[in-house]
């Protein structure tokens, strides 16, 4: 299993080489990989159909409870087969669709990497492993949407999809970690088999909300659905594969996967039921609003995703069966329809449905497969879509409480619209008058028709012989529901309410198709603001607001004025000090000024006055001179209090500093008066606060000495052990020689820096 998934990434990395070696057949060659995988996964079908699950695990990061563990049950197998199976056709289709494109090699890398990620996502048993693959699908999707990266539109759509899905992904990460913390296990199989229900857990509500944020964004649920139609900027194979058949179903997959553990509460049922139904209706409504064929299909995908979410929310045996059936049916017909849409585009250069017509002669095969797939989309017998739709209506009718009324209404309304959509994509391009096309219409090559042919035909076969799909569908439904639904798939359920509703939707849908142009222009517009404009504008506002706010806060904070920075720094220091005192207490000052000699008062006053003079003078020379006075005053203080070495050093250093200042500064102009009185008052207050705080802190520590100083040792050992009688110097060159060593390097570095500053002027050297 691990090998199977890793092999995809290896092949993906080698794809450009393969492409170069095999030329125009590269699509077929590379499609061998998903084909092999399909066969491999198919070999699990008997086991899974017998009601067993397979779990395989390899160590990865035990420290964080992350491991390569995989779970094969009905649900994951269904997805794996779809991913590999449709992957075969998408890869071979792409080889021809993008033939001659300069980036086809890179395209293979991305699409195969995506395939590996998607397989990993659905097969992973470890929730962190699953999340890892989840994020990988987001990023490969980003790179694929932006495949035509020199177009601004593609880049924008890619960014939008990425921000929405990655944003949701981060919520999902938090939700999954909470799930792990709450359940005490990081393996899906253990969480699902756990005896204690999480329903009563304190973290249930937040973790469900967070996980659903992840799944709703990924699966384009209302109000996050807007990114999906924009993602149609990607090449058609990408749309068919990622944004219809597989990746967007990842959210659905996860909800289905967690349904047995998290489902069954009112929160779960109502949230999924309502959001699913609204999404379903939104998708259907927006679909008939669209004219570009890929957008139409994209919105109908939104509709399908909503349907699946709703079915998971309802959580009955019927709903589980309906979900599993619908999942399979949708992947088959939607994959086919996307590829056929690409085929029309390829053959005619036309993307707008209203400009199409009369293609059935020029593109007979495309037309035939389109009709079959569209019939399945519309849910007409004897196609597999019909089986799904009947079950779906049945399940909606069986929804609990008020949902039992709301959901069927929305379901029928959506069904009506979908019939119209099916007619628009399945009939409109091929029948009626034939307009002028950019290219002379011609049928697509075999590589581009093989996929639609197989997928559409499978929809027909499964419709006629539902027993063929029965084992896998039941196994899937078992995973979703948490128990065997004990139900048979049948094409014919007898005459009942769902059948009646189907007929109703068929008739009403065809009426809408008949008047599509006027519907689009008329009432169709009514709800566009709520369905499309508002959510997308919400995203745009958010992004604009983000850019505006970040520019604003950066202007305010990083405003370029050093004095603001100094002010903030000093006041932050003071504020934190005072806040600490306020919280913990401890500001006890007991000082006495009794034992101070006159000359000490005088010298301190002199230094203080000189400092005040420096701060206020407007003469540079006077400032430097007073600085000298301060320096010598300080050195006198050192000498008074038994520090001769300090005194000497201070005098020498002060002299040098003053010399430097004079050397450097006397060329500069005099001080200018920049600040106004108000600023100065503010600065004086701030400075006073700083000064008073420092004095207070220092005074508070004056009487405090908890332990005898370690220097007693230095005094005692200086001569006996270090052979020196100047204890300060012995500390400097022996006890703490490392400090002095560092100090030397500081000096040397400063000299090197100064030298470079004076002598090395890159700008002069360039010119």
């Amino acid at each position, binding site marked *: 299993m691990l090998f199977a998934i890793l092999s995809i990434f290896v092949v993906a990395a080698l794809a450009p080489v393969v492409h170069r070696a095999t030329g125009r057949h590269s699509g077929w060659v590379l499609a061998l990989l998903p084909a092999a995988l399909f066969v491999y996964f198919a070999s699990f079908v008997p086991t899974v159909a017998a009601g067993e699950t397979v779990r395989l695990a390899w160590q990865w990061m035990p420290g964080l409870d992350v491991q390569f563990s995989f779970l094969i049950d009905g649900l994951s197998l269904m997805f794996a087969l779809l991913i590999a199976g449709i992957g075969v056709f998408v890869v071979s289709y792409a080889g021809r669709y993008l033939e001659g494109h300069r980036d086809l090699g890179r395209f293979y890398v991305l699409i195969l990497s995506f395939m590996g990620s998607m397989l990993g996502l659905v097969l992973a048993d470890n929730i962190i492993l699953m999340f890892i693959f989840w994020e990988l699908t987001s990023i490969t999707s980003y790179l694929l949407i932006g495949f035509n990266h020199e177009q601004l539109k593609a880049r924008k759509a890619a960014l939008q999809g990425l921000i929405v899905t990655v944003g949701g992904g981060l919520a999902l990460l938090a939700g999954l970690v909470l799930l792990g913390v709450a359940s005490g296990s990081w393996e899906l199989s253990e969480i699902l088999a756990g005896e204690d229900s999480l329903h009563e857990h304190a973290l249930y509500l937040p973790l469900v909300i967070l996980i659903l944020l992840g799944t709703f964004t990924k699966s384009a649920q209302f109000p996050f659905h807007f990114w999906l139609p924009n993602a149609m900027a990607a090449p058609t194979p990408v749309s068919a594969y990622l944004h219809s058949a597989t990746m967007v179903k990842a959210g659905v997959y996860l909800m289905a996967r967690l349904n047995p553990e998290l489902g069954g509460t009112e929160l779960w049922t109502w949230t999924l039921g309502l959001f699913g139904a609204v999404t379903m209706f939104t998708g259907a409504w927006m679909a008939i609003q669209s004219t570009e064929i890929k957008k139409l299909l994209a919105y109908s995908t939104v509709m399908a995703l909503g349907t699946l979410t709703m079915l998971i929310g309802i959580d009955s045996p019927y709903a589980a069966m309906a979900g599993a059936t619908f999942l399979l049916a949708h992947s088959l017909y939607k994959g086919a329809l996307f590829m056929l849409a690409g085929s029309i585009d390829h053959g005619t250069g036309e993307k707008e449905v209203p400009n199409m017509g009369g293609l059935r002669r020029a593109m007979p095969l495309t037309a035939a497969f389109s009709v079959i797939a569209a019939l399945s989309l519309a849910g007409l017998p004897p196609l597999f879509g019909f089986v799904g739709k009947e079950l779906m209506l049945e399940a909606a009718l069986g929804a609990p409480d008020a949902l039992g009324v709301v959901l069927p209404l929305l379901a029928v309304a959506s069904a009506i619209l979908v019939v119209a959509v099916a007619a628009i994509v399945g009939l409109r391009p091929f029948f009626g008058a034939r307009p002028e096309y950019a290219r002379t219409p011609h049928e697509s090559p075999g590589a581009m028709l093989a996929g639609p042919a197989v997928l559409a035909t499978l929809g027909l076969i499964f419709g006629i012989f539902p027993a063929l799909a029965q084992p896998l569908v039941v196994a899937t439904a078992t995973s979703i529901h948490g128990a065997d639904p004990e139900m048979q798939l049948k094409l014919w359920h007898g005459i009942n309410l769902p059948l009646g509703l189907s007929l109703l939707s068929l008739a009403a849908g065809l009426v809408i198709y008949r008047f599509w142009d006027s519907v689009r222009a008329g009432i169709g517009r009514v709800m566009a603001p709520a369905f499309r404009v508002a959510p997308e504008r919400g995203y745009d506002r958010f992004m604009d607001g983000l850019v505006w706010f970040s520019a604003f806060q950066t202007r305010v904070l990083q405003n370029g004025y050093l004095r603001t920075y100094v002010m903030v720094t000093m006041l932050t220091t003071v504020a934190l000090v005072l806040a600490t005192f306020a919280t913990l207490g401890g500001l006890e000052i007991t000082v006495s000024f009794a034992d101070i000699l006159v000359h000490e008062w005088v010298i301190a006053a002199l230094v203080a006055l000189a400092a005040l003079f420096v701060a206020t003078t407007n003469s540079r020379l006077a400032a430097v001179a007073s600085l000298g006075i301060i320096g010598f005053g300080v050195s006198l203080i050192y000498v008074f209090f038994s520090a001769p070495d300090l005194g000497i050093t201070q005098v020498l250093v002060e002299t*040098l500093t003053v010399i430097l200042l004079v050397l450097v500064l006397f060329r500069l102009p005099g001080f200018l008066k920049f600040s106004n009185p108000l600023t100065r008052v503010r600065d004086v207050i701030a400075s006073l606060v700083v000064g008073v705080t420092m004095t207070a802190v220092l005074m508070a520590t004056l009487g405090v000495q908890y332990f005898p100083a370690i220097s007693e040792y230095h005094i005692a050992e200086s001569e006996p052990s270090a052979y020196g009688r100047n204890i300060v110097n012995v500390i400097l060159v022996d006890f703490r020689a490392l400090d002095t060593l560092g100090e*030397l390097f500081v000096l040397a570095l400063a000299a090197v820096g100064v030298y470079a500053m004076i002598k090395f002027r890159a700008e002069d050297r360039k010119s």
Partner: protein
Amino acid sequence: MMAGSLILQTGTRLLLPLLLLFSVFLLLRGHDEPGGGFIAGLVAAMAFALYMFAFDVYKARAILRIDPRNMLGIGLLLATVSGVPALLQGRAYLTSLWWDVEVPLFGELKLSTPLVFDIGVYLVVIGTVLTIVLALAEAEE
């Protein structure tokens, strides 16, 4: 920069060796009395700076013979390496080692790694101050 007066020049010529000798004295007695490599280095550096003010940068460089930047590096090397012999003996870095050396005429001389270290300090301080001062003075011209 203007060269100083003749009196200053003559005075400096006499003062320079005296100051240098004094700085060496400060250096050697630092372990026992106020002084030490740093103070000694500053005195020596100021002596050269004085010379520079009295004459000019080029004369000062000439009398130095060695570029102060090299002196900087050599001083650093000396200070850094002074801790290494102890390492070779299997003791901690910068552990002081003492040797009593009999020098003819002078008698007994106390040699130690802290002394080597202090000489390093001395050189670095001279190197630093002169690098800065000479560079600034050259920039002024």
